[in-house]
Structure formats: C-alpha cells, structure tokens
C-alpha cells in the first residue's frame, strides 16, 4: 500500500460519558450475533433488536449500528454517501464515529478496513479483510409485490419468487427491457432473493464474488443480512434478456474515466450539464495521477 499524501485524520479522544461506539457491549454483542447468523445464511434477513440512535431512522441507523458493533480501536473507517466522502450525511456519520470511538478515518478506499456506504460501492476494488457496511432503507425485496411481511416471509421460506420474475417479464413486454434502475434484486447463493440496497444497477456486478465481507443493516426495519466473501450473487434476468449496466457517452469531466458511474451536474439554467465521477476518492486519485503524468508527457 502506498503512503497517502493526505494522512488519515488523526484520532480524537472519544467523547466522555458514552461507551466505545455509543452502544453498550451487550447490545453490540446481540447485533454481532445477528450478523453471524446472516453470514451463515447469505442473503437471508435476520431480525435484530435495533436501537434508537442519535440520528434519525432512514439516515443510516442500520449501517451505523452494524458499524458500531464490529468496529475496533485499530480500525480505519471510510464513510461515503452517493459515492462521495464529503456529502453531508457521510460527513455527519464519520463525525459521529470520530466522536464516540476516536478512531482513524480516511477517504481512501484502499486504506479503510471498514467502509460504511449509502447508495454506492467504491470503484476501487475491495480486498480480503475489508468490511463493507451498507445502509438499507427497505430490506424486503418482495415488498412491492407483497406489502405484508408475514406473507413475504412465507414466500422466502418456500423460495416462491415467481411473481418477481413475472414483474420483470411485464416490464419486457411493455418496454422491451427491465425498467428497474437501482436496488435491482439479486439472487444470493442460488437461494435467497436480496435487495442490494439502493445502489445503481451499475454496481450490482461488484457484489458477486467480492473478497470483502459485505454486511447490510436496516435499522428501522430491524433486519441484518450479509454476503460473506466470495459469494455468488446474480442479478435477476432472462436468458434472452440478459442483465445490463448503464454506460455513458462521455468520460468524467474531471479525470477522464470512462468506466465509472457518473453524476450528472446541471451547471446553469440553460440545460447545460457535465458528468463527473460519483466516487470522489477514485476521481481525486485519478486526477492526482494524471497531474503527475502530465509533465513527463509534455
């Protein structure tokens, strides 16, 4: 690993009056038990006794609780939202863990041992030993077909996923392709239907056979699920309508990348737009490398 020019932010002293990582040890243990169960049954949702956290439900409390229960003093934490380290909610969650853990934080994917994310998987490939924690708003992949969780549980138990395929088929008959842009359902280990959290379809292939441990926490819905390293994850599709991901016509305006997920930025009220990498760390590193390369080329 190369030494980062910007060193990981130095640990502050944890805020007095709170246990390390806010939750008491008993609670952390109960969450880890749920996470272990989840690892044992990839893609299956495990109920856990979610606690009220000092941030609102829907703002990442599931991810925060999972992170709080697995984080240790030696960890280096990265928090992203929409792929960026400097969006308000990412800043806020990172600030929280600095306050209650006094741990190191970083913006660099390869330096992090623990990455909490909302809506993206970093472009930099993850490695063994890293833990990805996803914030999940709606863990139940069947809820748009069957809002009753009692019924949905039965459907999972019986592997009754036909209605989901019917829904995808209906899209194809109407639109010629599957009209689902994000939170695209996947089949895990050939058994459980799982929601990958609202990541774009573009990120789905990164879930498959990923060397990192991937934990999914849904605080309000009180569910944890997991993908152990190197788990088979298949995005739902049909033989004659294979799964595809988005591509863009133009490269990133800042770093020139052509293989990343781009954010569309409206720059004036005349409809002008530019497209930039949503993964700020990846984009910054590429810009720095480009900058270093330029003098030698000219």
């Amino acid at each position: 690993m190369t030494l980062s020019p910007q060193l990981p932010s130095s640990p502050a002293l944890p805020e007095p009056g709170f246990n390390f990582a806010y939750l008491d040890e008993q609670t952390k243990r109960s969450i880890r038990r749920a996470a272990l169960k989840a690892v044992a049954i990839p893609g299956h949702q495990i109920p856990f006794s979610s606690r009220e956290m000092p941030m609102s439900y829907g703002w990442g409390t599931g991810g925060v609780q999972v992170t709080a229960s697995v984080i240790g003093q030696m960890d280096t934490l990265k928090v992203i939202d929409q792929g960026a380290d400097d969006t308000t909610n990412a800043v806020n969650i990172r600030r929280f863990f600095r306050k209650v853990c006094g741990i190191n934080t970083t913006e660099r994917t390869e330096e992090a041992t623990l990455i909490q994310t909302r809506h993206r998987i970093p472009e930099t490939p993850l490695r063994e030993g890293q833990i990805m924690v996803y914030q999940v708003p709606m863990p139940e992949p069947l809820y748009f077909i069957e809002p009753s969780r009692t019924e949905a549980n039965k459907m999972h138990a019986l592997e009754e996923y036909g209605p989901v395929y019917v829904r995808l088929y209906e899209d194809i008959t109407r639109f010629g392709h599957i009209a689902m842009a994000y939170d695209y359902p996947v089949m895990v280990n050939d058994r459980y239907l799982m929601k990958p959290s609202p990541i774009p379809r573009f990120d789905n292939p990164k879930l498959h056979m990923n060397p990192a441990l991937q934990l999914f926490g849904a605080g309000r819905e009180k569910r944890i699920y997991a993908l152990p390293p190197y788990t088979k994850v298949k995005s739902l599709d049909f033989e004659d309508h294979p799964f595809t991901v988005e591509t863009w016509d133009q490269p990133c305006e800042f770093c020139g990348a052509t293989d990343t997920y781009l954010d569309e930025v409206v720059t004036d009220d005349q409809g002008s737009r530019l497209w930039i990498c949503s993964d700020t760390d990846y984009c910054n590193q590429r810009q720095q490398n480009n900058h270093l390369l330029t003098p030698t080329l000219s």
Partner: protein
Amino acid sequence: MPYVAVKGGEQAIQNAEALLKAKRRGELAVPELSLEQIKQQMQLAVNRVMAEGSLYDPDLAALAIKQSWGDLVEAAFLLRAYRTTLPRLYYSEPVETDRMHIQRRISAIFKDAPGGQKLGPTFDYVHRLLDFKLAAENNQFSVPTTEIVDATEATPRVLNTLVHEGLIGATKSDDPADISPPFDITRQSLSTPTSRDARLQNLARADEGFLLSMAYSTQRGYGKNHPFAGEIRVGEVEVVICPEELGFDVAIADISVTEVQMVNQFKGSKQIPPQFTQGYGLTFGYNERKAMAMALVDRALQAKDLGEAIDGPAQNEEFVLFHSDNIEAQGFVQHLKLPHYIDFQAELNLIRQLRRNYDQAQAEQNGVEQTSPPASDSSASSLGHAPSPHNGDSTQVPNLDHLSPEPHSPSEVPA
C-alpha cells in the same frame, strides 16, 4: 471549469447547528425558559414526550422539550436516543393500578360505582374560550378544597362488576403454560403475527396522532366494535422491583399514569359465548386522549383472536404496529431530504430511455407505413444524452402493473 456546488461539508453542518441554537434561544432580552417551568407549566407536553420517548423522567423530558425548540416528536426522539445508552438492570413487578393514588376516576357505564366518580383536573367541561386574563402574568389560582380520601385504600375496578357476572371476557392467559416472561419490544425485533403483550407495548409508545386517527376510524365503521368507557383512572402508582440477589421487593419510584378500560360489545362466536370484551390503554402521565385511543385500537387488534372479520385498517396488526412509531416514521419520511443523486441519475437514465422508445413508437404509428422494428431496445449505449428540451410535463410512463402498491413509478420508491 465551472464550479460544482453539490457537496456539503463539516463546516456547513456545524454552522447549521450553531444557528439552530441561537434561533432557539430567541431574543436575549427575554428570560430563558427553565426546566422547572417546562416541567410544571407544560406538564402535559412532558407527559407526552415521556410516553412516546418510552422513558419516565420528567426532568430529562423537560430538557428534551427545551432542546427540541418545543417540537415534541423531536423531543421524544432525543429521549429514545438517550434511552439506548442506559443499561437494562431489572424488570419491575407488574404495576398495581388497583392501588393507584387516584386524582381522577370516571366511569361512563354506571352512574355510581364503588369508589365513586371523581372529575379531577379536566378540560372536559371547560368552555373552550380563550382566557385573555391568562395573557397577563402573575396569575394566582387556588386549589378548591375537597374532602380528603384515604389514599392507601384500593379502589375496586368498575369492570369487576361485570366480571362477577361472567359477562366480560377474562383477557386470556389463565393458561398456566402461558406465564412466560412478556415480550420486550425494546430488546426483541417485533415480527408478525404478534401477541397482545407486544402489541400493548407498541401502542403505549405509539404516536398519539396516529393512534387517535386509528381509533376514530373504528368509530366511523372501519372495524366497528361499539366501545364504552368502562373506567378511566389517573394517578400515581408505585413501581416495585424484586432483585434476585435481595429476594424482596424494593419500591423505586412513584409514577403518574393514565389507565383506560373500554368495554366493547361482542356477539360471540362458535367457541365464545356472547359477552363484553375489553380494550386496554395505559400511558405515562396524564394523557386520556391517547390512553382511550390506545384502548380502542387494542380492542380492534383483538379481531383475529376473537374470530371477527378483519376489514378495517385498525384491525390489521401489521398496518397498525409497523406504522405507529413516530420516531421511525419521522425519520423515514424526512430522509427524503438526504441526497439521492445516484438513484435519481439511474431513474433519469431510465425515463429518458423509456421516453425515447415511446416517442419512437408514436412516430412510427403516425408516420408513413414502414417496416417498424420492434420497440425493444436493450442497448443502453446512448443513455447519458441530455434530453431534447422537454417541458417537464408528465413522462407518460404507463402504469406497470395493477398489483403494485406504487402505481406511478416504473422503479421503486427512491430510498
């Protein structure tokens, strides 16, 4: 390179917090509220915050109200988040509301009942006229004198009269096998189907407004069950714990509660003879509106156990229990304020593609007869194109399926 103003920062967050604190304080010339003032003069607000925050501590509730700028849902949220950090040391013994130190007690089903009726402090018969004298300060009001009742004496329940006659269902669990410890919704994840202990806990800390609406809906015919206010009592009860290491009871607090027992009609089923049934409500503090609503909803949720038809939202336990908590609800509704650039970008790409296909199909239909290619377009190569100036009207995506609970979006609710 144009400036891209899409990111917020730590400084912005800190400034927002500082601004909030300053705005909350208001003009410095006006004296600051003290916790004691809130605790005493806004007692019903304190009660509501304790109930929905599910923590009985008037001082902390008053602090939460002060800190939340008077937003009671936000105050309850503050209490809940604090509650997370507290260790669970003991479970109390069941609270004996029979032995309540009664401030108010009424029954709507018998003109007089053993123990008597006592109005206590209530808004019920006050003319709701704005009292302009109250706008002035230094108001002095004296407590009217009444005869003092022996507080130590237990007040029998009105409903016992019906119990003696066998006309009201004992609320289950006479079964000795059913003395398992009660469910704890703060330590276990609630899953359906539920049992009554879990339901009552959920309702006890449910949002008052939500419960009120649910209860009201049963009265208007969505799960009708003819309620009567059997007994409402308000007062102080003793909380007792029995630590295993000591082996005897220790009283740890007096708390004020409101208890409601509703009597409801039940025409009977094949297994159960015609009789009255009851709905139960209990809240921290003095909060009759909520306790009554709770009792109505509790009764509505017994529909399944009693073999009644389930046709109102208030009878559907999944619907009621999973949407009753305002801490959860306010968070998820308001999380829509968080950035959603990524899923919106994905949705934008999709809608553009659908729109292109639609326009193409329209053009082919209207245009000269020609061999039309199938509408299918699985290549996603041109997704990123800025759209031709379209005038922000509806994108005319057809309704995907009639089963789907969200009819207008081709994808799911952004989250």
